[in-house]
């Protein structure tokens, strides 16, 4: 565990979260937006894995288990997002988020 100090790891995962959030808020293409969601959730996964190993106590296992569950969750999230975007694409022939304006007034 010497390669990374907690501060370095937090800088990395924080940067991942920031990248993901930035992508979610600015991406116009829904597929790229889903990738951003994936990156943001993986920032949390990284934290769980690292701090489970870092603390070295009995909680180590739970941290790694949580990481596995989170990976599954991220996949589910993307599956649901793809279902929505497929429906939109069928109706409009476009997956551009910015073109969604039926609710604007």
């Amino acid at each position, binding site marked *: 565990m010497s390669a990374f100090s907690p501060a370095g790891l937090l800088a990395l*995962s924080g940067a991942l979260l920031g990248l993901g959030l930035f992508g*979610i*808020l600015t991406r116009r293409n829904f597929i790229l937006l889903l990738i951003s969601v994936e990156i943001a959730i993986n*920032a949390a996964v990284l934290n769980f894995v690292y701090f489970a190993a870092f603390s070295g106590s009995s909680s180590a296992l739970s941290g790694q288990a949580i990481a596995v569950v989170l990976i599954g969750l991220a996949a589910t*999230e993307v599956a649901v997002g793809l279902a929505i975007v497929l*429906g939109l694409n069928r109706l409009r022939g476009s997956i551009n988020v910015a073109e969604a304006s039926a*609710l604007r007034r």
Partner: protein
Amino acid sequence: MSLAEFLPEILLLAGALLIFLFDVLGRRRLELVGGVAALSLGGALLLVVADLGVSGLAAIRTVPAGSVDLPLAPSLYAFTSLGFVFQVTFLLAGLFVAVASLSRPSDEKGASVFFGLLLIATLGMMLVAVASDLIFLLLAIEVTSLSTYLLVAYPRRDERSLEAAMKFFIIGALSTALSFFGASLLFAAYGGTSFYALGPGVAFVGFPLLAEIGYGLLIAGLGFKVTAVPFHAWAVDVYDGAPTDVAAFLSGGSKKMGIFAFFLVFLGPILLLRSAPDALPATFGASLQLTLGILAVLTMTVGNVLALRQKEMKRMLAYSSISQAGYMLIGVAVGTYPAIAGAAFQVFAHVFMKTGAFLVVAAVAGLGVGPLIEDWKGLGAKRPALSVAFALMLLSLAGVPLTVGFVSKFVLFSAAVEAQGFYVWLAVAGLLNSALSVFYYARVLKAIFLDRPDPTSPVAGPLTGRIGLARSAVIAVAAVAIVGLGIYPGPVLSGISTAASHFVGIGA
């Protein structure tokens, strides 16, 4: 532990699986799948009411009295009486929407998707109410969130619904990422994620700053779920674009789930402030309280001010729903047991008021009346019973005496005054906001009962559409409950107060 303790949840899951099985077999009649959904929701409701310790139902209790309200332990789930109160609320919201939806046109496509997802969304909320671990809680919230995204999108040919689902999904994904990152920081700071490890069982606090940032991210992540300002902007578009029955479920059910999540996550540090003021999480319990108080005031004020300007009924109700979330957040910020009881009672009452109001809006849209408030002009003369029920719901939302909304606000605000200090201002803000909200409710009532319909409006015509027996029954039950609980809140209120005092006892 035994599986029987989760019988209500298993019932919901079995109902959902049965509906999806019927779908595969080609049996998609609305009466069939809706009946299965209503039965499993009703059965689960009966079991949970029995768990609350109602005399006469002791024989069907699934959770023995000895395993309710135990001291907090490092476990994944725990049964609390306040959790049962919230489960009753969620099941009532689900049941109302399911029964009312039986009145839909029976040739409508997608009935099995709607009812199946409704059951799974309710299942997620039920699990939130028994969570005793942050990760368990967030995963249960995800179960509900993922199914509500699809519920909003289920009329697949409707562009507005799909667009609402897309917005809901994007905001939901944002909130998920923030919540889990917050949880991972708390894990780093405390070495665990159970509420025991985060509260009374604090063993190791490695990084106090991480804990503070973690709680901050959780406020944002969960704030999206309860539509707390400034995380509210999505709600109005989603409620507006979603099918109205789904909007009824979102405001009566999934938002209330967020309120309970606030209780679970933030009461720990706030309660620690009183019992062990020197422990580290307690030191920022105070700033947490201040933050939540500010959030509550902002939420109710912004919700009410924006509701004033709305021309459409559904959007007006959506903004009023945001402001109601602000009142409920007062309960979390104050954190004493009368305040929690007040917030829980407000949540309970909200099912009848807001879910009922959305169901009326769906009924009136079914009559062929337009979405604008002015389209409702003169409805009182044409459909007096429906209009009176809607009037009762709005009066209750405004907090007029003799309705349940008055009782819940009275309990909540008096608890805030009792707590002294800064909390008195929360009560003052709540009162001022209630007065403000009367304006826009009164405007609707004037349109319905005093104005004459425009000659071109459908209300001036024969108004031939049908509401349906099931939907009328639900609306009637909600209206009767509003007045009944408003005049005689005694037993329900004392039950909720006891549950809240136990809940505070566990956390301290």
